[in-house]
């Protein structure tokens, strides 16, 4: 008997006492999420992880990006990223070693989650394959205010599982030494979120 057949046979035998009725999953945890102050809450919670957040008007994204990237040499720009960058490096099949020599990466996001201060990448246009936003030490992520949803449930409902996803909540961190939190291990040690919203002054 193959391992597959035997394991499935063991499963059947183990559950001989079960009557075969499907367990009904209660969903009482789903309550209407508060929609006011979503963006403020998102900003608060991203900052809680000691990530940097800059709020800016759509017209001043260029300046905010330049400021976030000041001091960086080479900046990786995934194809489809909406803002042209002077020092931008394109991903022409860069190896892991090549990526390690790049200072920063800029990406867009697919959505943001206010309750947990999370940004989600799905690695399409403007975000690039997963390694791009992982190996460089600074990740600057452009999030539009209208992409922010209330909670985890809203995010899961919007996301398509067929594309790979990376949920990012702050810079990489560890609590492995005496359970004290240290920011910055293997992933980008600095996460800078640029939150683009109409409500901000164009010059700011």
């Amino acid at each position, binding site marked *: 008997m193959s391992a597959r057949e035997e*394991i499935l046979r063991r499963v059947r035998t183990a559950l001989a006492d079960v009557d075969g009725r499907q367990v009904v*999953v209660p969903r009482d945890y789903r309550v209407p999420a508060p929609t006011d102050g979503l963006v403020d809450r998102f900003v608060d919670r991203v900052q809680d992880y000691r990530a940097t957040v800059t709020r800016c008007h759509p017209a001043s994204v260029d300046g905010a990006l330049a400021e976030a990237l000041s001091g960086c040499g080479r900046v990786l720009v995934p194809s489809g990223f909406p803002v042209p960058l002077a020092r931008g490096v394109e991903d022409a099949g860069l190896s892991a070693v090549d990526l390690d020599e790049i200072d920063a990466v800029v990406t867009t996001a697919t959505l943001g989650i206010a309750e947990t201060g999370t940004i989600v990448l799905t690695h399409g246009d403007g975000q690039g394959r997963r390694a791009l936003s992982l190996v460089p030490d600074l990740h600057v992520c452009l999030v539009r205010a209208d992409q922010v949803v209330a909670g*985890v449930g809203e995010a899961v409902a919007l996301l398509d599982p067929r594309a790979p996803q990376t*949920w*990012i909540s702050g810079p990489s961190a560890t609590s492995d030494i*005496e*359970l004290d939190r240290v920011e910055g291990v*293997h*992933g980008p040690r600095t996460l800078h979120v640029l939150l683009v919203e109409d409500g901000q002054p164009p010059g700011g």
Partner: protein
Amino acid sequence: MTGTFVGMPAFPAAARTALADTQLRSNLAHATSTIRAKREAVVGEVEQWEELRLSGAAIKDRALLDLEDHLVRLEAALQDRGVTVHWARDADEACAIVGDVAQAHGLDELVKVKSMATQEIDLNEALAARGIAAWETDLAELIVQLGDDLPSHILVPAIHRNRAEIRAIFRRAMAAAGRPAPDDLSDEPAELAAAARLHLREKFLRARMAVSGANFAVAETGTLVVVESEGNGRMCLTLPEVLVSVVGIEKVVPTWEDLEVFLQTLPRSSTGERMNPYTSTWTGVTPGDGPQEMHVVLLDNGRTRALADEVGRQALRCIRCSACLNVCPVYERTGGHAYGSVYPGPIGAILNPLLRGPDADEQTESLPYASSLCGACFEACPVRIDIPTVLVDLRAQVVDAHRPSRKPEALAMRATSWLFSSAERLRRAEGASGLAGRVMERFGRRSAPGGRRTLSRLPGPGVGWSRARDLPAPPVESFRAWWRRTDGGRSEGDRS
């Protein structure tokens, strides 16, 4: 035998050694009190916490009670996305599959994401025997691996080590495994983490194969999920060409939408954060992004044995958050090594006997007793595993496995059953016990709260039992004698 620490004594002996280690107790008390406070704060933020627990338990039950269907659907969905699916009855089969994949590519090293399943099957040791080095990349796992040590916590395997000890391990052992620790390394956690970053980065950049586990496997879509903090998981899941994921068959959840529950309960229960820094989900091979060759090993290794236990099967709901460890008064004092397994604490005390059989060996059968049954673990569990009830049931199974027995408890129980089965015998025994009570009350040196005299030490075979317990002196008058004397309480009067 797998997942056990070879040569570990039964829990009581191991616990005694651990309790005498003051450094260990201070490390543990600090770490568990820190994480308890963080967990309480973020769980308290969620108004629907209890509803989330109920749903989490129901989702897991739904998958487990119809496991064959879910596994077959998961297999089909994975294959549909270009993944090779393997099935492993036990640890040896699983290790052989991983080793074969590595050798097929001519590799002598690979990088690993922290995974309880691969700890359980002793994968690193099995690969080393075939000349393949498996580098742990989680910081705590790295500390354990470099220190040639054993894990003592599910989430933070090096919880028993403090910063000074970790610095010493890095200074001593990093050089032999790759990039050495900096000469001026201090014991600041940030510096220690930076040393680990440099040490591991060269391994990530050259790795051609990675081994991971999975926190969840979605039957509907074939999606695997890894929840982590450091980014070592993302490195392993993204940079190498070949990825093998070893997944226990109980990790399956029915639908993508079900993840909304666990992505709320797991981080808050585990690290005490609203969300962990990184969660990766992937559905088979994505052309041009990440490993282009993927394998999933579906692992039994005792899980179907646990599934057959009507009371104990709820332990398979476990999402390995380790909240039960952090709230357990026994774990906080003994640490994880005393449990003799990669699964320590309250969940380990039920999971190990369920996976291996409660009478597998002396060490395993001591585990259901490694608890005061206070119930803190059940309250903390995000999937509502009623650990105290399972512990009590397993204790009964251990006792049953040893009948007939000459143990004093068994003899005492048999005598009690003889006594209680006859009213006349019970009346006479109560008379004798009342007499004894009158004598003992006079000599009892200590008293229990409420003022009742207690006996400090039983004679004869009872000496061991009474060493850590107070036995109340028998009452002078039995309930039945009182009933007769007072006509059922109608003529209540002072005892003569």
